[in-house]
C-alpha cells in the first residue's frame, strides 16, 4: 500500500494504541527551553519521577534572554529567575547538551536543533513551543506540546496522540526574485486560513518546495502552525542530506550510510492518498504583507487594506473591523502608504544565515530611513551570528543604521526588553501579528526578510522586486 510521509513517520513510532485510536508515540528528540519547562520539571520532582531518557533532551534559554549588554546578565528579575530555574533543572536532571545564556551555541530552540544536527530525518521531535513544526523540514514528525506533555515526555519518552488527517500543499513554479519562502507560506495561510489546517498534518511538496534550501523549507514548516496544523513536513532529498552531513550530532562513517539508506525512504509513495490537496502557483506570487491581527489577514505589497463592508460573513466582518481598529488602518489604504516605526529581522521563522544574507543584499550601501526609530537584526543563534560576521553581514547592517544584536527570540514575542511601544508599527519577519504580540498596543505586519529590509530603507512598505531587477 502506498503511504504518505506522515503515515510512514507515524507508523514507525507507535508503541501502543488504545481502542479509540489514541496512540503512544515514541519521542526521539525533546527540545527544552525556559518558558514551558519549569512546571514540568517541578511536576517530575513532586511525583518522585526520573526522566526516561535524558539523552534525548537538547536545551537552551532563548525567550527571556536579552539581546544586548550580555556582560550585564539579565536585568529583569522575573526573567532571570526563569532562566536560572532552567540552569538548575538541567544541572539536576541532565541533558544531551545544554546551550545556556551566553554560550557560543545558544540561540532560538528551533534554530539550534537543525544547525547542530540534533534534528535528523525520521525523528519525532517535540518541544513546549508551537513552532516545533519547523523541524518537519527534515522529514521529521515535529509537534508543539503543552507543559503537561513536556512532563509526560520527560517521564515516559512518549506522547499521547491521535493520528491526524493528511493534507498535501503542492506549490509549483519558479519564484520571482524578491519572493521568498516566507511569501509562499503567508500566501498559503491567506488561502486556507488560520484554522484551515486544524486536524491535519501538512506535507509541503511541488517543484517550488523542492527547489528551496533547508532554510526556506524551515520557514515554510515553521508557519504550518499558523495555518492551524500541528505539524508540517517536507520529504527528504539531496538538499536535506547535504544540509545534515557533517553537523555536530549527525551520524558519520558507516552509520551515515545506513542512516541515508533509511532517510531516502522518507518520501510519500507514488500514488499515496491525502485527505486534502491544496495547489498553489508560485510563479505568479508577489511579496506578501499582513494588514491585520491574524496571519491569514494578508495581501500583496501592491494591494490595499480590504474593506470589511464587502465581507458577508458577520463574525468575519466584525473580526476585520476589530483588526483594522487595532491596527489603526482605514479600508482601501494602499499597503505602500503605510508608514513604519520599527523593523525587526529575526525569530525562528527568518533568522538563519540565508535570511540575513537576503536582507543584507537589499540593505547593502543604503541607509535606514530617518523616520524609522529602530531597525533590529537578531541572528537566530550564536553560530548564525558568527557566520554572518565572517561574511561581513554585520558591517552591512551596522553601516546602514541597523542594530546588530545577540541571538534570541527578542521582539518576536517581546518577553525580553526588545518590544514595541503602544501604537508603534513594525515590519517584522516573525510569525505572529496577534494583538500585543510584540509589545502591548504594538502593531505588527509580517513580511519576508527582504521586504523588511526594504521597509527599513524607505520607511514604508516597498516592493522589493523593483530593487532586485
Amino acid at each position, binding site marked *: 500500500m502506498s503511504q504518505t510521509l506522515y503515515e510512514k513517520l507515524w507508523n514507525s513510532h507507535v508503541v501502543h494504541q488504545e481502542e479509540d485510536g489514541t496512540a503512544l508515540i515514541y519521542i526521539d528528540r525533546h527540545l527544552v527551553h525556559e518558558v514551558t519547562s519549569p512546571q514540568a520539571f517541578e511536576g517530575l520532582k513532586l511525583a518522585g519521577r526520573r526522566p526516561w531518557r535524558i539523552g534525548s533532551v537538547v536545551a537552551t534559554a532563548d525567550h527571556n534572554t536579552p539581546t544586548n549588554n550580555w556582560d550585564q546578565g539579565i536585568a529583569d528579575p*522575573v526573567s532571570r529567575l*526563569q532562566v536560572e530555574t532552567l540552569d538548575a533543572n538541567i544541572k539536576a536532571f541532565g541533558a544531551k547538551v545544554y546551550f545556556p545564556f551566553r554560550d557560543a551555541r545558544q540561540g532560538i530552540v528551533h534554530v539550534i536543533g537543525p544547525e547542530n544536527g540534533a534534528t535528523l530525518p525520521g525523528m519525532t521531535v517535540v518541544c513546549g513551543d*508551537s513552532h516545533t513544526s519547523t523541524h518537519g523540514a527534515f522529514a521529521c514528525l515535529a509537534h508543539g*506540546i503543552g507543559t*503537561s506533555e513536556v512532563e509526560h515526555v520527560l517521564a*515516559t*519518552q512518549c506522547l499521547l496522540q491521535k493520528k491526524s488527517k493528511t493534507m498535501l500543499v503542492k506549490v509549483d513554479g519558479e519564484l520571482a526574485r524578491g519572493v521568498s519562502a516566507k511569501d509562499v507560506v503567508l500566501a498559503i495561510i491567506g488561502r486556507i486560513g488560520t484554522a484551515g489546517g486544524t486536524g491535519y498534518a501538512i506535507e509541503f511538496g511541488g517543484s517550488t518546495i523542492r527547489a528551496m534550501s533547508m532554510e526556506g523549507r524551515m520557514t515554510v514548516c515553521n508557519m504550518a502552525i499558523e495555518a492551524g*496544523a500541528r505539524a508540517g513536513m517536507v520529504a527528504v532529498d539531496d538538499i536535506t542530506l547535504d544540509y545534515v552531513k557533517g553537523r555536530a550530532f549527525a551520524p558519520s562513517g558507516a552509520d551515515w550510510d545506513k542512516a541515508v539508506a533509511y532517510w531516502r525512504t522518507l518520501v510519500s509513495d507514488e500514488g499515496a492518498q491525502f485527505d486534502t490537496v491544496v495547489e498553489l502557483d508560485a510563479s505568479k506570487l508577489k511579496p506578501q504583507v499582513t494588514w491585520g491581527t491574524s496571519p491569514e489577514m494578508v495581501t500583496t505589497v501592491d494591494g490595499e487594506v480590504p474593506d470589511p463592508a464587502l465581507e458577508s460573513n458577520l463574525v468575519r466582518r466584525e473580526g476585520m473591523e476589530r483588526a483594522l481598529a487595532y491596527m489603526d488602518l482605514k479600508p482601501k489604504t494602499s499597503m505602500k502608504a503605510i508608514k513604519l516605526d520599527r523593523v525587526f529581522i529575526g525569530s525562528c521563522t527568518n533568522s538563519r544565515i540565508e535570511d540575513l544574507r537576503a536582507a543584507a543584499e537589499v540593505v547593502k550601501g543604503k541607509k535606514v530611513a530617518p523616520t524609522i526609530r529602530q531597525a533590529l537584526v537578531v541572528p537566530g543563534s550564536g553560530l548564525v551570528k558568527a557566520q554572518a560576521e565572517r561574511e561581513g553581514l554585520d558591517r552591512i547592517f551596522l553601516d546602514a543604521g541597523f542594530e546588530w544584536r545577540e541571538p534570541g527570540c527578542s521582539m518576536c514575542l517581546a518577553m525580553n526588553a526588545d518590544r514595541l511601544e503602544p501604537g508603534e508599527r513594525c515590519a517584522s519577519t516573525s510569525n505572529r501579528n496577534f*494583538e500585543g504580540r510584540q509589545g*502591548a498596543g504594538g502593531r505588527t505586519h509580517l513580511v519576508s526578510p527582504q521586504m523588511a529590509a526594504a521597509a527599513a530603507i524607505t520607511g514604508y512598505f516597498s516592493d522589493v522586486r523593483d530593487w532586485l531587477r
Partner: protein
Amino acid sequence: MQAFTQLDGLVAPLDRANVDTDAIIPKQFLKSIKRAGFGPNLFDEWRYLDHGEPGMDNAKRPLNPAFVLNAPRYRGAEILLTRENFGCGSSREHAPWALEDYGFRALIGTTFADIFFNNCFKNGVLPIRLPQSEVDALFAQVAANEGYRLKIDLDAQTVARPDGKVLKFEVDAFRKYCLLNGFDDIGLTLRHADKIRAFEDKRRVEQPWLFA
C-alpha cells in the same frame, strides 16, 4: 488532575473568532515558574484598562467596563461560550491554567485550536465542539436571558439547555475516560513501560545514531 463529570454552570459569551493564546494570557505572565495564580490575568489586555505586569495587585487595577467578563451578570461563570478557532497560537499551557484558575471548567465553541484543545484535557477543562447553528442559538439565548445556565454531562456527552433541549457532543473515548476519572496521563502511560522499553531497545539497534 481534577475529574470532570457533570457541571451545572453559568454561561459567559465571548463573541469573537480566532481568540489567540496571547489574548488569553499575555506573555509577560509566562515568566512565572508556577502552575497556579494565572486567573486574575486571564484576558488581561481586554479585561483591564491599564497594562498588566506580573506582581501587580490586580484587585486595584481599573477594569474595562466594556469587556464582557466584567459585566456583573457573568460573574462566577463556569462555562465560556466562544467562536471558531479558540485558543490558536502558542502551545502555552498557561492558557488553560488561566481559564481554569479563573473558574471556567468547560468551553463551548465550533472549533478549537489543536494544541490548546489537547492542553485543556490535561487540566480538567472540557472543550465542547458544537455545530455552528447550535452555537449561534446559544449566543442568542445567553444574550436574552440573564443568569443563563447549561447542564453538561460528560458521561452522557450532553449539554442540556434550560428550555429542555439536549445537545449531543463528541469526545474521544480515551480522553473522556481520563477526564471522568481525573487520571494522570503519566501514570497511565507507565503501565506500558515494558512496551516502551522494548520499542526503544529495537530502535537502538536499528537506528543507533538516534541514541548517540
